[in-house]
């Protein structure tokens, strides 16, 4: 090997998420923050409510992150970020960016009021929801982000979840915030680009990242990135951006949609599903996709 070719790196090499953290093997949430911080850089403060990342960061007196972290109460990610931002502005620091970093429980359920309030005031923060579709670090309890049919410890196989996943992106679009996007850890360049875009917009920004959780999804750790990719390719989790709540842009045009079965069969939490149940999920995914296409073409 004498060739002196450079290694192809599509992302900046600065790492603000450190090794030695307490994430499970193959954690999608870890990758999500790694990419977002590559975009935001060192002049950033982050507010983390109760969620997996409150644990991953490490116990007192340690932190695996290279930036200031504020651990706050479960329902206060957005309001804490607002407060930190206001405090920084009081001392004349308009440059430091503030991120609220919450899981799906802290966004879809417990933190939705403070998120809605911050969005209504259009406070200058980036809110990222890394969505692993249940309360994972407390023992895999269902949240309103858990998809239909999924096993969790509170929706056991005999009583799987009946309700569909809450459409948080439509809720945020209804707030008419300047910028929001969905992103996936399987498309880091896209996620990075969206974070950079959010960094340069003033007002409330919202990014919804699907973060596979091998522990809670009962999948193999090495499949984490593959699952995130399949979620996009099956249109279960399409990648799009919304500006001012109405300008929809599709980032990933799906030519041949893969069947949802490919995505479900890699995950133990869907193993109990009968063919009829899978067909029902496929129908729901198709309906959501059509709904999204209408919004993209409506303008």
């Amino acid at each position, binding site marked *: *090997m004498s060739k*002196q*070719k*450079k*290694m*192809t*790196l*599509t*992302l900046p*090499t600065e*790492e*603000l*998420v*450190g*090794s*030695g*953290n*307490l*994430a499970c*093997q*193959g*954690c*999608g949430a*870890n*990758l999500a923050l*790694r990419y977002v911080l590559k975009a935001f850089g060192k002049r950033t403060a982050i507010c983390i409510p109760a969620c997996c990342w409150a644990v991953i*960061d*490490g116990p*007192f*007196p*340690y*932190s*695996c992150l*290279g930036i200031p*972290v504020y651990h706050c109460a479960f329902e206060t990610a957005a309001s804490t970020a607002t407060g930190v931002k206001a405090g920084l502005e009081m001392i004349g620091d308009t440059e430091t960016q503030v991120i609220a970093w919450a899981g799906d429980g802290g966004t879809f359920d417990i933190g939705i009021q403070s998120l809605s309030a911050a969005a209504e005031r259009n406070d200058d923060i980036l809110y990222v929801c890394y969505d692993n579709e249940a309360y994972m670090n407390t023992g895999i309890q269902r949240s309103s982000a858990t998809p239909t049919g999924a096993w969790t410890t509170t929706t056991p196989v005999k009583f799987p979840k009946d309700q569909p996943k809450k459409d948080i992106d439509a809720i945020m679009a209804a707030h008419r915030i300047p910028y929001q996007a969905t992103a996936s850890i399987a498309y*880091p360049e896209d996620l990075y680009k969206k974070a950079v875009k959010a960094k340069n917009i003033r007002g409330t920004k919202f990014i919804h990242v699907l973060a596979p959780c*091998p522990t809670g999804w009962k999948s*193999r*750790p*090495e*499949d*984490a*990135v*593959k699952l995130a990719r399949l979620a996009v390719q099956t249109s279960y989790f399409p990648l799009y951006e919304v500006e001012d709540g109405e300008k929809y842009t599709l980032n990933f045009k799906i030519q041949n949609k893969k069947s949802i079965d490919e995505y479900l069969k890699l995950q133990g939490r869907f193993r109990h599903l009968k063919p009829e149940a899978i067909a029902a999920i496929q129908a729901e995914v198709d309906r959501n996709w059509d709904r999204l296409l209408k919004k993209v073409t409506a303008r």
Partner: protein
Amino acid sequence: MSKKRDAKKIVYESARDFPQMPMSQGSMLWNKTGSWRNIRPEIHLEKCTQCGICWKFCPDMSIVIENEFPAVDYDYCKGCGICAAECPMKCIVMVEERK
């Protein structure tokens, strides 16, 4: 973050050593997560095209770049296998860890 720096545990001798506010005072680098591993990735560089995909997808920042080629940091690699699954050239194999 330089890995050699501050990879130590913090010990408070008495209550007086405690910081007044519960603030973090060091990194997690003392926590060698390499001990979590059952299987270890081994990179066979002959087929490597230096595409950087393994580096990009490692959740534990354990693929380091040495002389423009990927190498595994076994102190922290948790053995998740994502690098082996994602490498388009299939040059990373997961082998059983011997203790």
